[in-house]
């Protein structure tokens, strides 16, 4: 009976947050860990799906309230959880988890976080989170990271580590370590523009990235003086040069509930001076 209620809740779209149901799942999970491992495993997954869906709604609220860092951390956290679960579990489509993952990646694209710190290291010792055995694939304890054993997720705990170096990278393995500058702050204008156009977490939207002429080159004529002020004809000067273009992002909201406005120009760049 309870399983039906959980599956029904997980199948609802828009998401209906049911805190009492989540508490009930948690209580049943605790009981099942003692008496029924199969049920405990099933409840563990269902609980994760409920948490992911709840968190997705919260992220939308955070972004509306300009809590950018908190929202970013939550996005990265649920992204990691979904990818980890997909390693070992076929997630039913009706839970909309794949949809949520797709939108996490889209929202991340609108963040000005493009540089991250990353560690190079040697992991000298890892221990199995279930039994405490030192991890060695050739002498396996039988538990695998990312799998659920009697309602408990197996993770590997790093117990000895040699840090080799820290670097600034664009595509990190984990996205938590966002690079921040002491005298600058991130420019969230693009993200704000997107969030202003969305009424709720369920609106379908997409984006297209393009390169378009900068405003000063938009109406340049081949045989007229170049807008750069060189006194040469445009066709003999800046025409066709990469620096005459700027990045442009087009947001497409499928059935917009409010008007976004046309040709809105947003301040360029990842950073702003601190006020």
């Amino acid at each position, binding site marked *: 009976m309870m399983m039906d209620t959980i599956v029904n809740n997980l199948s609802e779209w828009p998401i209906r947050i049911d805190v009492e149901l989540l508490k009930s799942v948690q209580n049943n999970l605790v009981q099942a860990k003692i008496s029924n491992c199969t049920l405990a495993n099933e409840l563990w997954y269902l609980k994760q799906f409920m948490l992911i869906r709840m968190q997705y709604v919260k992220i939308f609220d955070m972004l509306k309230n300009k809590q950018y860092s908190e929202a970013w951390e939550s996005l990265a956290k649920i992204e990691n959880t979904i990818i980890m679960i997909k390693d070992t579990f076929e997630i039913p489509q009706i839970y909309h988890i794949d949809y949520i993952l797709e939108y996490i990646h889209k929202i991340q694209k609108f963040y000005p976080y493009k540089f991250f710190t*990353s560690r190079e290291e040697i*992991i000298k010792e890892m221990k199995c989170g279930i039994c405490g055995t030192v991890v060695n694939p050739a002498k396996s304890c039988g538990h695998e*990271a990312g799998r659920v054993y009697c309602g408990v997720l197996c993770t590997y705990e790093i117990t000895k580590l040699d840090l080799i170096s820290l670097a600034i990278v664009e595509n990190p393995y984990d996205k938590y370590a966002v690079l921040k500058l002491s005298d600058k702050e991130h420019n969230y204008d693009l993200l704000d523009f997107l969030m202003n156009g969305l009424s709720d977490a369920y609106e379908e939207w997409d984006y297209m990235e393009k390169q378009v002429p900068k405003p000063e080159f938009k109406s340049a004529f081949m045989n007229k003086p170049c807008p750069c002020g060189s006194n040469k004809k445009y066709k003999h000067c800046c025409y066709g040069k990469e620096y005459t273009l700027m990045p442009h992002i087009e947001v497409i909201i499928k059935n917009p509930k409010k008007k976004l406005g046309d040709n809105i120009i947003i301040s360029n760049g990842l950073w702003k001076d601190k006020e």
Partner: protein
Amino acid sequence: MDEIKYVTNAIEQIEDNYVRECISGITDNQIALIPLIGFRGKEGYTYPEGTTDFFNYLKVQSSKDMKLAFDDYYNENVMHNEWIRLAEIVVTCGVLPIVTGLIVSFITDKVKRGKKDLQKVKVDLGIKVKKGSKTIDFSFEGDASKLEEAMRIIMEIANDDGHNS
């Protein structure tokens, strides 16, 4: 940059004892993973991050006996970028078709689960194919989308009579 490189080496000339013994002892019923010797100037043997997953995947999918060339202490090296790096594999020529197929499915599944684009994910891997007293050492660096084609080329080269010893 999608590059396959290969070179033929005599097993007896491999300097490291563990690696040499592992390769010379490999049979048609085994797959071995060999470590990187020395990482960023640090002594010792390390395997790329996530080798445990790859090891378990090969073990389950191939039904072969899996071994590590050095298994006293298992250390992993973690690098900065998002490349998928696999531990270098040692197989006989007979097992190569199974292993190449499994490499492709392991990487493809991994990329698709993360909802990433195969053309944007980079892969770095090495395979040592034992042929008699020699090995053909292959390396591939490039897009995950080119991996299947790369594995086909590797099999063709490995099967080429000119490399038989």
